[in-house]
């Protein structure tokens, strides 16, 4: 049984969905979560789709921890946690979350090319917040890019999100930083540690 008091989650299998846009660093984040799960002693499955969808399209990773994990895919409406690297993608995939599930949203806007070539508009923040609230009251917005830019590298936004998630789950930073450290180049280690703590602060404050 996996127990996260802070999230009020008691589950045989913890299901985490990562959504974003191709090229945003979702792969690193899902790799960190998979390895973290393994280090914590769980069975782990991490499912991604490669190929065509990566060309600027919506991307989605399924990640599951548990005693024994069978299906690699999280069924619709069953995700305990969703990490959205981009606001529009948070809304696009919100029906994947279970009622009362937790959503971490990176406050970043990447406008799809279909906006400049059609009349469909990019939804404003209020619309996104309200629509998400119809599915779950638990949404955390994190200024991941701004925090990472303040540290000098916008690309560390994905690690800011991991930090936010670790705090949200009520977990100690060490096991997370162990995995992150093993996966980023040594010269970026300091940056990534700072980014991770920025993310924690965003939730704890």
């Amino acid at each position, binding site marked *: 049984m996996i127990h996260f008091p802070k999230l009020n989650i008691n589950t045989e299998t913890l299901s985490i969905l990562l959504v974003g846009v191709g090229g945003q660093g979702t792969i690193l984040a899902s790799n960190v979560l998979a390895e973290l799960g393994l280090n914590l002693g769980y069975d*782990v499955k991490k*499912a991604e789709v490669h190929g065509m969808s990566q*060309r*600027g399209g919506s991307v989605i990773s399924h990640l599951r921890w548990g005693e024994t994990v069978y299906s690699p895919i999280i069924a619709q*409406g069953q995700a305990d946690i969703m990490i959205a690297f981009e606001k529009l993608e948070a809304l696009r995939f919100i*029906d994947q979350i279970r009622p009362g599930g937790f959503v971490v949203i990176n406050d970043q806007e990447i*406008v799809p090319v279909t906006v*400049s070539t059609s009349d469909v508009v990019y939804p404003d923040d209020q619309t996104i917040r309200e629509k998400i609230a119809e*599915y779950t009251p638990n949404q955390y917005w994190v200024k991941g890019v701004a925090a990472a830019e303040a540290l000098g590298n916008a690309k560390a936004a994905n690690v800011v999100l991991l930090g936010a998630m670790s705090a949200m789950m009520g977990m100690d930073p060490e096991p997370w930083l162990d995995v992150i450290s093993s996966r980023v180049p040594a010269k970026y280690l300091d940056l990534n540690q700072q980014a991770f703590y920025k993310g924690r602060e965003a939730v704890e404050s």
Partner: protein
Amino acid sequence: MVLNEEYKPMKRLLSGNEAVARGAWEAGCSVASGYPGTPSTEILENFARYPHVYAEWAPNEKVGLDSAIGAAYAGKRSISTMKHVGLNVAADSLFYVAETGIEAGLVIVSADDPSMHSSQNEQDNRQYAKFARIPCFDPADSQEAKDFTIAAFDLSERFDTPVLLRLTTRVCHTSGPVEVFEQQQQLPEPGKYPRNIKKYVVIPANARQLHPVVEARVQDLAKYAETSPLNRVEWRDKKLGIITGGIAYQYAREVFPDASVLKLGMVYPIPEKLIKDFAAQMDAVIVLEELDPFIEDQVRAMGVTLFEPTTKPEFPLSKSVFPIFGELNPLIVRNAAKAAGLLNGEAEELPNALQVELPPRPPSLCPGCPHRSSFYVLNKLKIPVNGDIGCYTLGVAPPLNSIHTCGCMGASIGVAHGAAIAGDKERHVAVIGDSTFFHSGIQGLINVAYNRSNTITIIMDNRVTGMTGHQQNPGTGLTLQNRETIEVDIEAMVRACGITKVLTVEAYDVDVIEKTLKQWMKEDEPAVLITKEECALLPSARKQYLPLEVTDQCNGCTVCFRIGCPAILKSEELDPKYNRSLAEIDAALCTGCEICAQVCPRDAILFRDQVRAKQVN
């Protein structure tokens, strides 16, 4: 497999593809040849990094399989990898090696793509195993992907047959813990190359002798299947028994935790006695599998009675409970089981659909993509375009809308030629990438030249195999294992095919592409335009990025929006005269390819030189 005991296994997170590569290496496989194709590509990319192995990208799957067969004839354990549709290309070779057998183990990997995440169809390649009478393994996770690969080499040698290792996207691209061993299996050096004409020369006289051998082999394999550790029964409640294989096993366990399961690791041939004994002990038996009723048809043919659902699915054929198309998942399986009366309760209600229209985010040509200019011109000139498989297939998407057919690898030139010989009133253009041209496009071009149709072909040479994630190919000067090699000269190759009207241009040059096509449309002979520019995502291209800028000359005319570049945004600022959104360039995405600057009628987008001059001032 014999291992030195001091090598203790450790658990590592591996994708199914990484696990197959690992398994092949641990099994002593030392030769690999294949062609990239999602979801199979990472198998060879990973295998190539192991010590003491040879791995290559072949120009197509057939050449890859022939090469692996040749290595297996020469006594080396060999593997050939491809996506499901690649096995169509390699099918001729599959059928002869099924007859001849091999000297050392040969594993053929087919990575199927249920739900067509990156494919033109979702054919179920387990059917090829039955068709060619060879054993088929269907792993359910990464651990099995590794174990089954090793077992496949052993079985291949034991029964003198190639083995089809059939994967699916969710096995290929799901990572899970795998026990790995550090030591490669030690194999004896191969002996002298066989001079076994009756076995390896399939002239009719020999082939007639080989066919009964193949049929007998299938029977022997079916006997082996009865006791093979690849197939196992998990006894639980006997009210419901599930016969399953591959990824569907995971859904069986998740949705029916109490049911007994007969898990088939080898899905062809299948063990008749094991299945009948299992079925006899159950109150009801179902088959749970993705796509075709492959196991189900075989089980029914044995005379086993399967559970009859109260409500049949929409497309029953012989599949009784679960859908015949698309990838399964726990929700689909649960709902199908409920509809069939296997589980209590109504189908689960899905969360409410989102009540707001969102801008879609389909895959699209990247900012700076050198294919964009040709598609802009083709769309502008309203030319019917016969397309091919690669990144440039995305030329079909709005606003470019400039691909009108696309079937399979290498089809473009033949289909365009077909329109010409049918006397179609419009002149057609075939569009094909460098790697696809090497794969199977060149034969179409030979046909155009030989039979003198007036087909125009654009070969979009972006110096890499792009869509599958930057693999080397015969035009790049490097091999899969990063050895320096020749670069095939596409223009010389086209001329050698008998095409005399050939021009190589810079792919970003909109004006030259437009003028050339317009001129060629007036003439009546075959012609090839090679648009050459490296993929904008290659590291060497990234070093050249220089974001462009929009000046106050912009009046929101929307011409630049029509090139479909993700870096060009609608500004919130409106043109005062026409009240239209002005164009804005996202500096984080723009590479400075200058296609937009070329098409802008008001010179409102600065070229690179102008941007540089402005920066200096």
